[in-house]
């Protein structure tokens, strides 16, 4: 397939997934803030911090509050990281490859954008939960349409690759931010509040019930294990990396366990590292440090994919392993 088309399909999927995860981020923070004493706005600041665009935020909004952070991450037209901008970018990518995807995929994404754009004009409602639910459902619908209407060849694998790499990154960020906000209150460990907060984190990745089935009691360590190295839960980082690994080898045709290009090399290394880690080792390194380095490695995989398949000079694909 055309390199440009592969690139657009990969990013189309990434942006849809990114919008979904933003909705999860904001939604969980709304829910958690309802259980906290009034005036605890620090977790809204943490969301801004996690976006990596504090400067832009301070310049346009000042002090973080529930209202302005929600506006910033949801409907800010000027900010490229808002839900609205992500859905728009997904749609623009889809528009440029309309001939390569199924028309059902395009029409759903088009409809998705129209609705979010209309919602942006209407502004944030008193209870935004329904809206975030709509975003999540629309993303799920898009994935479902992709799986049921799009031939599962190279293009499909590029779309899955984009989706799971984005998801791995975002799960790591939700965990990072919430661990950071929850951990300082050592006194709370084991209290009902603590339990509530950790279940909110699990709910934010739709993992509460699945976690319960596996572990029953909630402890920070088990939650970390579940979200980082569980192989079965679809939003766990290990699961995402595994899926990306299979798609990447399906694209290049190289046997698993070997590598023909820099993308496969980096992803294979990351997968092994996760596969042979325990929660205790991760916590010993420091969760934040571990997740930070994970995000850097995920970026390296993305860059490797770009170099191998998109900006490729076919004579030179293996030059910079």
């Amino acid at each position, binding site marked *: *397939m*055309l*390199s*440009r*088309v*592969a690139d657009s399909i990969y990013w189309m999927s990434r942006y849809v997934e990114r919008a979904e995860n933003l909705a999860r981020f904001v939604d969980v923070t709304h829910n958690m803030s309802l259980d906290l004493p009034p005036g605890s706005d620090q977790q809204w600041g943490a969301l801004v911090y996690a976006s990596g665009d504090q400067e832009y935020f301070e310049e346009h909004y000042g002090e973080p509050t529930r209202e302005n952070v929600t506006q910033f991450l949801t409907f800010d*037209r000027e900010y490229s990281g808002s839900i609205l901008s992500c859905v*728009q970018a997904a749609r*623009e990518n889809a*528009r*440029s490859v*309309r*001939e*390569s995807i199924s*028309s059902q995929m*395009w*029409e759903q994404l*088009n*409809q998705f954008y*129209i609705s979010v*754009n209309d919602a942006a*004009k209407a502004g944030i409602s008193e209870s935004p939960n329904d809206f975030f639910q709509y975003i999540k459902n629309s993303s799920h619908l898009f994935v479902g349409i992709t799986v049921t209407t799009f031939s599962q060849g*190279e293009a499909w694998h590029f779309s899955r690759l984009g989706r799971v790499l984005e998801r791995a990154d975002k799960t790591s960020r939700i965990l990072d931010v919430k661990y950071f906000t929850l951990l300082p209150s050592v006194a709370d460990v084991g209290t009902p509040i603590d339990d509530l907060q950790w279940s909110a984190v699990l709910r934010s990745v739709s993992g509460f019930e699945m976690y319960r089935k596996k572990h029953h009691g909630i402890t920070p360590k088990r939650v970390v294990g579940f979200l980082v190295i569980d192989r079965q839960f679809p939003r766990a980082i290990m699961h995402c990396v595994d899926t990306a690994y299979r798609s990447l080898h399906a*694209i290049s045709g190289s046997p698993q366990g070997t590598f023909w290009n820099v993308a496969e090399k980096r992803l294979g290394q990351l997968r092994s590292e996760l596969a042979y880690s325990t929660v205790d080792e991760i916590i010993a390194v420091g969760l934040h440090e571990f997740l930070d380095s994970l995000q850097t490695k995920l970026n390296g995989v993305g860059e490797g994919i770009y170099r191998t*398949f*998109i900006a*490729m000079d*076919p004579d030179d694909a293996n030059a910079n392993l």
Partner: protein
Amino acid sequence: MNQSQPNATQLHFRGYDTKGFFDELIDEHDKPRPGAELLLQRIEELPDDELLQRQQMAERSLFHMGITFNVYEDNQGVEKIFPFDLVPRIVAAEEWNRLERGLKQRIRALNRFIDDIYHDQQIVKDNVVPEAILKSATSFRSQCIGLNPPNGIWCHITGTDLVRDKDGTIYVLEDNLRCPSGVSYVLQNRFVMKRSFPWLFDASHVRPVLDYPGRLFQLLEYLAPEGIESPTVAVLTPGVFNSAYYEHSFLAQQMGVELVEGRDLVIHDGFVCMRTTKGFQRVDVLYRRIDDDFIDPKAFRADSMLGVPGLMEAYRNGRVALANAPGTGIADDKVIYAYVEKMIKYYLNEDAIIPNVPTYVCYDDEQRAYVLANLDKLVVKAANEAGGYGMLIGPHATDDERRKFAGLIEENPRNYIAQPTLSLSRIPTIVKDKFEGRHVDLRPYILYGKDIFVLPGGLTRVALKKGSLVVNSSQGGGSKDTWVIGSSLQQTQTQEHSQ
């Protein structure tokens, strides 16, 4: 009309005014024209508001399919659909069959002309087309001299503009031999109409148009360089910002071929190749929707960012086929157009079945004198402008505008032609909550491959502004579906009774 059947519908044709114009659906005695009986009757029978609701549904459906263009005034993400009107144009079989023969005749002659012009120029030597006019044609491409396109065909895909005057005569207004657009709207309009009026389609025997992409693909395959069993075909687009991008993407999708941009292509070992995730892959046929000037910076405009350097050389060496061939724009020159009837006589020894609009060539002293003396009655057009630009509509112009054009003509007579102001035919069109007559033209699409195929119907463009004669989408035009009714009048009536 339908005086015998009083009814309570809001949208009806009583009081619809056909005076002074040829109406495509209703004749001067307020009777339906052949083929339109069933449609008009059914529209009148629809309950209150039904038609308006269907019109809105059709618009919503186009919106959701994303067949839109951006409105650039603000960046609030406002998008609009190309306006579409639910009342179709109807062309009865008998009239259509004559048009089809006429269009085939015309494209055969034009193709012969283009081939002749880039080879021996016999038609100039025989003084049918003046040498001076050819020499001064800005759309003549010297790069194409001596080219031999596959099977001798230059203009594979054509969208001829037809108009009808007050007295009912249909003329060819323009030939559009380069990259005519709009066929995707023909197909989308048809999708929407089938959804809106399924029963009417059943009863009316409307000739199908949805096989166009399949036929286009066959044509492109037919052009492939010799010896290639299953050629790789691609559509070449200027990119997502082009106003016809939707169409490029739609056609590629419907044919199941790649849609490529210039930056996706490279010349590798003399062949045209796409950059793919698996390396370079050869392309054998390009349906290019980029104008000649931009297609290859090495051969044409050096500043083009859209094209593929070296494409023309690969084409000349027979390594890739292009549809349409470069150079066909010579016959789109409006001064050359004036000679098409003579070409038909010259190459085919036949009389033109569909006439040209009577055209005065300002290059000719006598004709120029007439034009300058009658500017208030004529439409003046520049030789190489399109989209309704660079023209003067004499009767509607101010004295100043007429003086300006008189000056332009004196300065560069070769660049102008003039034609009588036609009063384009009209069709009932939904305007707010009633029908009003709006002016239309018709663009049928012609595919020239192993044989010549004319898509039954085509794009009916409608000038939505009251009284306007400009149907271009850039200037407030919309479109309608075009139904070529396949069966005879008697059959239609039988169907009507059995419903």
